[in-house]
């Protein structure tokens, strides 16, 4: 049974080939990727590779397709009707869009933090441990441990440790967002996809999240969408600039922010438009 499973590659478990590939430092590779919402094309020929263990920032003006690209990585776009894609996207050398890919397994390896906080209408505790629950973890101690660790990492522990059984909807918007971050890292994913995680946070919480991202670097590969140039400059190693569905420029963050090749990149990072 297991042998059959490996040969048909239905599980997203890295093989030797994959490991070899990732030792070169690449975890995700996007090739000639196009996406249409119905008739409207939202992504045009996107080509990029994401380096393992690095923080990659996606920047660009509103509506340029950053969230779309991010959602393609863990196939959250599957929920959308009338969606068409062309091109390849691989993780550890394995095609994310191949027929028969274990989408659930893929998503377990990619935690995601959405642009808008979306906690479940459950207790804070249940929210954080949800990824473990769906994995069949029942041991109370393990759950509590994971809950604490994730909440601490998300800089929320001190605020909610007294009321873990309260409904998460009673938290403030910023607290809810940090809760979602805690939830995303509770199951120890390989890749963390963050869609403007700090847009609802105050400066202190923001800097705490930035610290967190810094700590996680190396263990996790992080892709973060942000509108905050300083933030992108502070925390990311690589930066991709998108505009109108196209990847305009992609490279090391220092280069992108100091001497980009493209005029538009320069205009954008210096705040002349966007």
């Amino acid at each position, binding site marked *: 049974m297991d042998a059959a499973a490996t040969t048909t590659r*239905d599980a997203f478990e890295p093989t030797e080939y994959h490991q070899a590939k990732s030792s070169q430092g690449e975890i995700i590779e996007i090739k000639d990727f196009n996406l249409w919402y119905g008739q409207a094309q939202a992504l045009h020929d996107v080509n990029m590779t994401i380096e393992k263990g690095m923080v990659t920032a996606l920047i660009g003006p509103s509506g340029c397709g950053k969230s779309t690209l991010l959602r393609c990585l863990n196939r959250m776009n599957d929920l959308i*009707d009338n969606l068409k894609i062309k091109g390849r996207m691989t993780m550890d050398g394995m095609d994310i869009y191949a027929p028969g890919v274990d989408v659930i397994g893929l998503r377990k390896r990619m*935690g995601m933090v*959405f642009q808008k906080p979306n906690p479940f*209408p459950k207790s804070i505790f249940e929210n954080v441990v949800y990824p473990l629950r769906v994995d069949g973890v029942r041991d109370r101690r393990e759950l509590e441990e994971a809950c604490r660790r994730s909440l601490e990492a998300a800089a929320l522990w001190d605020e909610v440790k007294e009321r873990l059984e309260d409904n998460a*909807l009673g938290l403030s918007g910023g607290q809810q967002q940090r809760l979602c971050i805690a939830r*995303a890292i509770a199951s120890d994913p390989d890749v963390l996809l963050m869609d403007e995680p700090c847009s609802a946070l105050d400066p202190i919480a923001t800097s705490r999240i930035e610290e967190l991202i810094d700590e996680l670097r190396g263990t996790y590969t992080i892709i973060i969408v942000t509108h905050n140039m300083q933030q992108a400059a502070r925390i990311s190693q690589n930066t991709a600039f998108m505009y109108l569905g196209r990847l305009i420029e992609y490279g090391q963050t220092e280069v992108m922010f100091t001497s980009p090749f493209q005029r538009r990149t320069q205009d954008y990072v210096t705040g002349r438009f966007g």
Partner: protein
Amino acid sequence: MLNESLTGPEAGGTARRRRPKRTSRAVLIADRIADATITVGGLMVIFAVAGIMVFLVEVVVPLFTGGSVGTHTQYRLPPAEGAVLYTAVDEYNTVAVELGANGRLAAHHLRTGAMVANVDAGLGGADITAFAATLAGEEVMFGLADGSVRFGSVGIPIQVLAANGMPAGLRRLDERDATDGEAVYTPIAGGQVRKVALSFKSEEPQRVSDRPIRLLDYRLGGTVERPTRAFVTIDDAGAVRLSLAESRVNLLTRKASTRVSTSALPPLPDGLRPAFVLLTDKADQVYVAAEDGTILRYDTRDFDDPVLAERIDVLPGDLRLTAFRFLIGEQQIVVGASDGSADVYFRIQNHNAASTDGYSLVLAHPLERQPAPIVKVAPSKRSKMFATADADGNIWVRHATSEQTLLRLDAGEGAAGLVMSPRDNGLYAVDSRRQADFWSISVPHPETTLGTLFGKVWYEGYPAPSYTWQSSSGTDSFEEKFSLVPLIFGTIKATVYSLLFAVPIALLAAIYTSEFVQPRVRAVVKPMMEMMASLPSVVLGFIAALVLAPFVETWLAAVFAAFLTFPLSLLAAAYGWQFLPLTVAGRLSGVPKFLTMAAVVVLAGVLAVASAPWLEDLFFGGDVRAWANGDVGSGAPLVFFLAMPAAYILSALTYDRLAGRWLPALVPSGSGGAAKAKSLLRWLVVLGGAACASAALAAGMTWSGFEARGGMVDTYVQRNTLVVGFAMGFAVIPLIYTLAEDALNAVPEHLRAASLACGATPWQTAVRIILPAAVSGVFAAVMVGMGRAVGETMIVVMAAGNTPLMDWNVFNGLRALSANIAVELPEAVRDGTLYRVLFLAALTLFIMTFVINTAAEVVRQRFRKRAVQL
């Protein structure tokens, strides 16, 4: 490029005309008109609903209002010479007739008291010592001092004449009536005249004893051609005799001859002074009552060998028994006493009674006590109503079955004569000072109170108080039984069983379309399900009664089997599907998957049919219907069947807990092949565990002597609740499905995305996130479905058998409130009791659906509030 587009209109330089910001008149007027129309329309809807409610209430209220008095006239009659034996009133309340012990028959005008006629009855001056009349009133009997009895009849014949049939020279009695000294003439509608006259006949005396007759009762039986007249006499010496008189007309001489045969009842106990004697109309029971409250009941079914069946004392201490009379039907006896009590007794079958015939006389209806000793009881000639007069002149009109006091009248002094009009619309009383009172009364619904409609009622002949609905029967003395409880029960039973079938299917279907299929499929499936709702329920009922019912009857074992094979095959197929390589599964996920599902459903059906005979032999003793009846097999399979769902849930919880603690390796986690094998293993173990647990429970309960049959499963009839459940299920499934689907769909997309992004499967997402978030909407959907099932009519009329029973047996029929209204309203006389009771049934139904729908709406409102929060 972008900078250019940012330039504003001013910068563009073109001086655009500023649009006026006023709202135009036309818009305002249209808005006003729309506002007014909608307000009027809305108010009209509210008024219409309120109007229906008011109308229903208005029709129903008279059921509970007791009685009312129309007119009351009072006059003084000329003094009577000697005692008055008998008083009667005609059907139209025109005259009152009195028969005196002196042998004179007098009639006077009821509304004025004016004497109409006073004739000699032709008894030849016999010394009358006892008197009896049949309940209908026409047939009378005299007991004489010489120990003989004499039959007679007092009639008030009524004729309708043409207008010119009215004789000339009449004496006016009042503005309406006139008399010629023999009869009263009343002009009636259509230019005709009603003539109310008097007639009296008597026969030759028949000797039954050689001592004076003291007490007498008389009943007429047999046929009109060959009447048998039964009477019971008690003479001076206390000898009780039951006699039968048979009349024969000699065909040659045309002379009637009467032959009397007499049988002596066992002698009365020493010291017992009989005060009353009663005889039933089949002459099978004789009751003798003494003043001290002793009642002797003789069983005279064997005419030649009567026996004393029972002796009871109905009065404590030194109370005196002052009245003892039958009500119509001659089963119920009103016992009046010196403390003012007037209670109703009847005979019920009672095997451990202290009587010789297995019956006993019981106090069935204790009624409200009057302030003074009861002196007279006047039963109604058409219902279980009667009037009681006490020594202080209070006259109360009561009803035996409903135990209520309908009217309280005051006559000033204790009545010597008391009679209710034949149509229950008047009450006539004469007291010892010869003051007469006539009340015209209206008591349209004496038998209904909240207690009789919704509580247990002890009807005559029933062993105990019960909830009974029986609105018609062949005989006249039959009492209609209006308990709404069996009907409410029927409605609840039909609702419960149909929801048991419909709710799981509808909810699973809703989860499936909202969470598992692509929006394109959903866009096809949902309208199709909604179209199912437009299937007329009469068609469903028709199919249920004529196709489904016979089918289920023939394939009962297969239907049972289907409850097992369908879920098991589908689940097994689903687990099997997991093992398809993902590439293959992905490629087959569209139409082929659908076809496979359809094939599995067909297979489950085939399996059910195929396994039916085998199942029947193994568990149901070879015949499911005989098994249901309790004739063969044991109740164990039923316990197994019923315990299975709960056992499955328990087993699953136990497995997860135990495996989670001791064998974490067996907990399916992740999504690899191993996890699939583990989840299949888990399913098999849980299923096996559940089966073992329920089997053990079934065996244990059977071993301990518990019989599961007789409650939910019992004797099979063709039109049964199972069939109704299926048919009504089909009526409510689309409704519950659509509303539940909407509720599930209304759960914000971001919750679904959050859960899926955490690596949850669609099923986990549905069960852990979507369903809890939509629970109140889903609940409301179920409630609306329940409301529909409660009000559903045609299906229950056609498929439920309409038997107003109160049991939970799935294999038995039921009668729902709605079906009852549909079936009986065409037969109900307008404004009659049945008519009003049916309206009460409608009101009850209205309230039930109203409560259910309101509950659904309240929950939905809460749901909306919570949805806003999400």
